[in-house]
């Protein structure tokens, strides 16, 4: 039997405001427990929420970024449930009338085709605090620093058909929120969280199967693994004649499995109703246009520009626009290299990315600046150095030995392109290897490589390879 996977994603993006969504308390991550919670965040008697205007601007940005309609009127509601890290006994969230309506994002599939993922809605809400169950000797600790942190929940349609598509969508969205500068995207710190609704159905079945909701997915890798595990689990259940239970499941990255957290029958009745402490949010066209005018170039637009202006492949362009910092870096390299986009792309995506990955550094932390790398690319392009030597020079630059020209100078690595010098060297090599010369001339063509090697060795790899080949060929066959 052939099964089809159906995935819908709910992403919680923590908005990078300085203060909380309904109070003036700071939102900084990692402060001492309960030091960033004021009377409002703590749900003291008599306190009232006041909406932080900045979150509206950020929600509009996201709405424009996903090609959605911004609701002229949206309403905050109360989602009522009891939990110790929810100080008021309700979470303020948008329910029936969210601020961002239907939108979409396009993702690039592995076969190079583009798929549109529809987005149902995005709404604003406040985060809860954290309950800490370890280290309290059978009790629980509560940290309310996070309580009241602004979140934008972005809900997709069940449009993804594999874990890979889900990850592609998440990466596009992740990149978008950082371009828009509305979320720092830090998954470890929980600034960008994802819940996945996963179900399977027989291929061709118009009806969706029973879904489970996966939680605790805090890296792209875990999301992919959790979905794949869950899909296998559901298929196994169905193939052995059992049913999938609608429930919330927690992913355990250590065991790479999901396990039941709470069933449908334990689902809360949240008793939503409009929050009488807050007025409906009214947004005018003027407000939207003002935000639109301030929007940066977004990843999709940038990608197209890279393809058009630099003649990059669709794949290269997609990789380079993943983050604004990477795209900016690349464009500086192109500029400094004297317009060598293809070579620049190869170096940024190859040598540089590899080195950054190995050292676990962000592009913004690169020891080699974009200008430095640009000059290196330029020296390759103008034949001052060979590609092979460039790798050695890159390493030296990485280790802080300075700019490319300084390193070439210091190490005497300049490529030899002077034909008389090359001829002299070739003569020398041929004279020193009479036996090999005789064999070569007797028909052992393979020995050509031997002569190239000897010449490179002698010159320290500085010979221009094309010129060397030509001269060698000419002299050996003379």
């Amino acid at each position, binding site marked *: 039997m052939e099964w089809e996977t159906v995935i819908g994603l709910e992403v919680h993006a923590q908005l990078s405001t300085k203060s909380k969504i309904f109070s003036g308390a700071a939102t900084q991550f990692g402060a001492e427990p309960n030091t960033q919670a004021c*009377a409002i965040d703590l749900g*003291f*008697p008599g306190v*009232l*929420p006041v909406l932080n205007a900045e979150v509206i601007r950020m929600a509009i940005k996201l709405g424009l970024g996903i090609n959605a309609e911004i609701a002229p009127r949206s309403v905050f509601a109360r989602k009522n449930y*009891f939990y110790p890290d929810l100080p008021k006994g309700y979470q303020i969230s948008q329910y029936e009338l969210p601020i961002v309506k239907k939108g979409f994002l396009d993702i690039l599939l592995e076969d190079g085709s583009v798929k549109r993922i529809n987005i149902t809605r995005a709404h604003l809400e406040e985060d809860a605090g954290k309950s800490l169950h370890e280290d309290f000797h059978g009790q629980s600790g509560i940290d309310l620093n996070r309580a009241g942190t602004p979140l934008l929940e972005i809900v997709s349609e069940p449009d993804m058909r594999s874990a890979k598509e889900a990850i592609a969508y998440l990466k596009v969205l992740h990149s978008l929120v950082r371009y828009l500068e509305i979320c720092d995207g830090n998954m470890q710190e929980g600034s960008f969280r994802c819940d996945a609704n996963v179900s399977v159905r027989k291929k061709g079945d118009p009806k969706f199967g029973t879904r489970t909701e996966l939680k605790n997915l805090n890296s792209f890798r875990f999301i992919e693994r959790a979905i794949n595990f869950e899909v296998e689990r559901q298929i196994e259940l169905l193939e052995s004649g059992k049913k999938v239970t609608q429930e919330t499941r927690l992913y355990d990255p250590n065991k790479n499995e999901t396990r039941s957290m709470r069933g449908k029958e334990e689902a809360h009745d949240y*008793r939503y*109703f409009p929050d*009488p402490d807050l007025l409906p949010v009214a947004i005018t066209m003027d407000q939207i246009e003002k935000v639109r005018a301030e929007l940066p170039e977004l990843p999709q637009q940038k990608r197209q520009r890279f393809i058009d202006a630099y003649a990059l492949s669709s794949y290269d362009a997609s990789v380079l626009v993943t983050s604004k910092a990477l795209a900016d870096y690349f464009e500086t390299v192109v500029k400094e290299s004297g317009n060598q986009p293809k070579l620049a792309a190869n170096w940024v995506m190859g040598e540089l990315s590899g080195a950054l990955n190995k050292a676990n550094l962000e592009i913004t932390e690169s020891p080699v600046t974009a200008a430095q790398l640009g000059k290196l690319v330029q020296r390759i392009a103008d034949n001052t150095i060979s590609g092979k030597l460039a790798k050695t020079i890159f390493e030296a630059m990485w280790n802080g030995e300075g700019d490319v020209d300084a390193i070439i100078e210091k190490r005497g690595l300049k490529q030899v392109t002077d034909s008389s010098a090359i001829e002299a060297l070739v003569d020398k090599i041929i004279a020193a290897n009479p036996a090999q010369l005789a064999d070569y001339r007797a028909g052992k063509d393979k020995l050509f490589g031997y002569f190239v090697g000897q010449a490179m060795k002698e010159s320290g790899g500085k010979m221009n390879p094309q010129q060397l080949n030509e001269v060698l060929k000419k002299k050996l066959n003379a």
Partner: protein
Amino acid sequence: MKTVAELSRDLASKKISSVELTKHYLDRIKKFDKTLNAFITVTEDQALENAKKADEKRAKSAAGPLTGIPLAQKDIFCTLGVKTTCGSKILDNFISPYDATTVQKFNDAGLVLLGKTNMDEFAMGSSNENSFYGPVKNPWDLERVPGGSSGGSAATVAAGLAPAATGTDTGGSIRQPAALCGITGLKPTYGRVSRYGMIAFASSLDQGGLMTRSAEDAALLLNVMAGFDEKDSTSVDKPVPDYTKKLNNSIKGLRIGLPSEFFNQGLDADVAKVVQAAIKEYEKLGASVHEIHLPNTKLSIPAYYVIAPAECSSNLARFDGVRYGYRCKNPQDLEDLYKRSRSEGFGAEVKRRIMIGTYALSAGYYDAYYLQAQKVRGLIRQDFSKAFEKVDVILGPTSPTTAFKIGEKTADPISMYLSDIYTIAVNLAGLPGMSIPCGFAKNLPVGLQLIGNLFSEEQLLTAAHNYQKVTDWHTKQPEGF
């Protein structure tokens, strides 16, 4: 017993100091509050200290008109460093870490806080019998209730334990006790006064206001209390006039509406007579009287008893025994902690309303109850806005009866709810309302209710003050105090 206006003149002319005045009221509280039970907390030391500061300001001529005037706050307003209970066991140990905006404003204006007054628990009640701190007695008859929920404030002002007090009004909680205790009560337009720091019962209905000895006093104090507050999104950013300025304007030509629905069979005949006499008085002052209709009045109680409990069920969820307030002994687990802290901490009426509200908001019932009630609310608003096309002020009884006996209605919540029949619609429509003393029925005070259009406090106060200039009902005092 002097009014705030009189005391303000006495302080300005140095006839009396704030310390003397404050001591006078503190002595009266000591003497009479054992009988009345109107205060939950008396802030004696703080009051004397602040009175001293007020006198120093007066000496330096740095004083405002109300500097040094003593005031009682309903125990629903959070007061920094002072116990703030809302009449509930669940907050019996709660010391507020901040001042409500109203408290802050009165402090800034130099008024001296005497203490916190008793009230129905979380402002839920019409008799002050729902307080964890015991019922308040009506100074006019100690066997009777003072009304509620601002019963402590009403009794305090009626018995002269403070010249004025704050109250809050969600369904009549200022106007009904003012009527039953023979004082002046003002519930401003929803949004005129900040709700920040006023412990929420039903957020879309709650409004802070004043309980005083005269309309003039209410105007003086509203000058301090009213205004936009950036901490309360539902407060309205509208300029605050000097409410005393037009008090003496003539009301000749004022169009008064009498809703037929307010004079029907539920109204006590003696109360009706007194109210009719008051209306005659208005006619003598040059006002014209018109019959009007508020056809949806009968729906106001059912709508209110869906909306108010729904909001309260959510507002009171924060009292969970986790961060502050009452926590049960030896909780076994989280659920036990919640269940027992709340069961033991809340009183019967509060629990009843939390349950009604939780039910009304539940999946499958929301549309039938909450949404339906909101539609009714819209109809009631429409009734009033139509009426205000024809008239300037609506008059009628504040309460269908005078003060009833303690214990008389406790077993029958519906008859208790009906005592707010004339006041509740005003909250649903967000309008300003007043109650002023207009006579007696069987030796018990009767209140006349004045209802105005949105933000027409000035006009209401003028209408009330004109009446008080030609009558003396508001100057009557209960015997023995």
